[in-house]
């Protein structure tokens, strides 16, 4: 594994590892670690650093929905144009063009179900190219970006063993 891949893997595991933590785990000097990270950021490989939040533990809980969108295209309007327009809404946390029965998978976040519903019906559905929206409210999250939720890891091994 290259230094870039190794540091990327570690930062995906925990973006808050300090330079010293990363240096220890990669056998690189701290300055080398910093240089690799700077390069990854400059090259646009690392787009940002965010916390993975279990919203159920936050008051007030955020409401999130996975929204399926179907669109029609014409000569002037392609997928990118529609995506560009949708991505600008602050409520839209994720937007992906997908294969299968629908065109876009969109992730929306709001303070309440009515706020999310209003956003879909008043802002998204009226976009001329959008022919259909199907909203799935997220009831429970078990894993996000590789992180499993739940009450921590249950280590049922004995505390001391041979």
């Amino acid at each position, binding site marked *: 594994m290259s230094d870039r891949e190794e540091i990327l893997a570690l930062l995906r*595991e*925990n973006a808050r590892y300090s330079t010293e*933590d990363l240096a*220890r*785990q990669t*056998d690189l000097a701290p300055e080398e670690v910093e240089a690799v990270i700077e390069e990854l950021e400059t090259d646009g490989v690392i787009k940002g650093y965010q916390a993975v939040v279990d919203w159920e533990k936050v008051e007030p809980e955020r409401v999130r929905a996975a929204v399926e969108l179907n669109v029609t295209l014409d000569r002037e309007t392609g997928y990118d144009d529609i995506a560009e327009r949708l991505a600008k809404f602050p409520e839209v946390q994720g937007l992906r063009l997908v294969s299968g029965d629908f065109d876009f998978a969109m992730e929306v976040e709001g303070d309440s179900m009515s706020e999310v519903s209003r956003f879909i019906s008043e802002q998204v559905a009226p976009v001329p190219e959008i022919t259909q929206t199907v909203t799935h409210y997220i009831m429970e999250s078990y894993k996000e970006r590789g992180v499993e939720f739940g009450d921590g*890891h249950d*280590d049922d*091994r*004995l*505390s*001391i*063993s*041979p």
Partner: protein
Amino acid sequence: MTFEPSERVAGVPPSGIRRFFEIAEEYDDIISLGVGEPDFAPPWAARDAAIASLERGQTSYTANRGMRELRERIAVDADEKYGLSYDPDEEVIVTSGASEAVDLAFRAFLDPGDSVAVAQPCYISYMPGVQFAGADVVDVPTRAADEFKLTREALEASGAAEADALVMCYPNNPTGATMTRAELEPVAAFAREHDLLVFSDEIYSELSYEHDHASIATLPGMRERTVVFNGFSKAYAMTGLRLGYALAPADAVDAMNRIHQYTMLSAPTTAQHAAVEALDSCGDEVREMRAQYDRRRNFVLSRFEEMGIDCFPAAGAFYAFPECPWADSDEFAEALIEEERVAVVPGNVFGAGGEGHLRVSYATSLGDLKEAMARIESFIT
């Protein structure tokens, strides 16, 4: 009428880790670095194979020596990975954990009055096992200065030349020491010269980080005098499935099987199905677990270095064996649990040469390791 233990049982003291286990059990907020088993679950494919075997109702006894299919795969695996060539029909026996294999070998080849050289510090069961077989233990302490490797000098100084057998374990529990082929040569020469049987526990063979694992049985003249122990607990994180094996010449396996067939009969059938699948398809998971342990090892070693605690560079298993900052490792380990809620095992429970050290297992998540090492640092400063 009372149940008086036999002299052999009465003569074996309770396990030294028992007391620490009881202390640790008093608290529910402990970070344990005292655990001698992987923190991973077995690969899914192996678990699926176990489940599928149960669904098919495959719960009858297997052949005493283990399912033929499993013995074949064990033989192929040992040959491909370590250059150990054994006939699956006559030279492989599947046991209920590598511990059973060790016990079988001791009882099959030791008589009362025999003596067994045991390279220490070591897994806590060897000395009682020798005693249960009625034989005597010759302590062969290894030293931090030799990176806890077994040397010819250590064997000579301890009187191992007079012994009937030698027990060794590399990569080592509790020190994390490993031995290269070149380092094993003088040990093999000593065993040949003094006609010692060699019991080589290689259960951590998959966890050798700095060089390929070398088995003493592959050295000239050693195959015929060595019993190699291995199993699925460490490499495949299958500790509770209790599956190990021994590789040895046909006569030796035959003798071990004579005890096995009357005591255990056969190893757990479900576990044997899981083991076949583990050998067939779980190499990637083993490599991934090893990479994780290696990352944790580097972290733990560097943290001890930062704290100014001497710790030789453990190169195998999943243990670091630093010097204990206090003179008495028992007292230190007890105070560390009570004051900082971090469990480690004092080195003296692992036999001669262990006092003055601590066994620190890094079979725990990096997050917990980081927190535990921070607590150790604040405890000693």
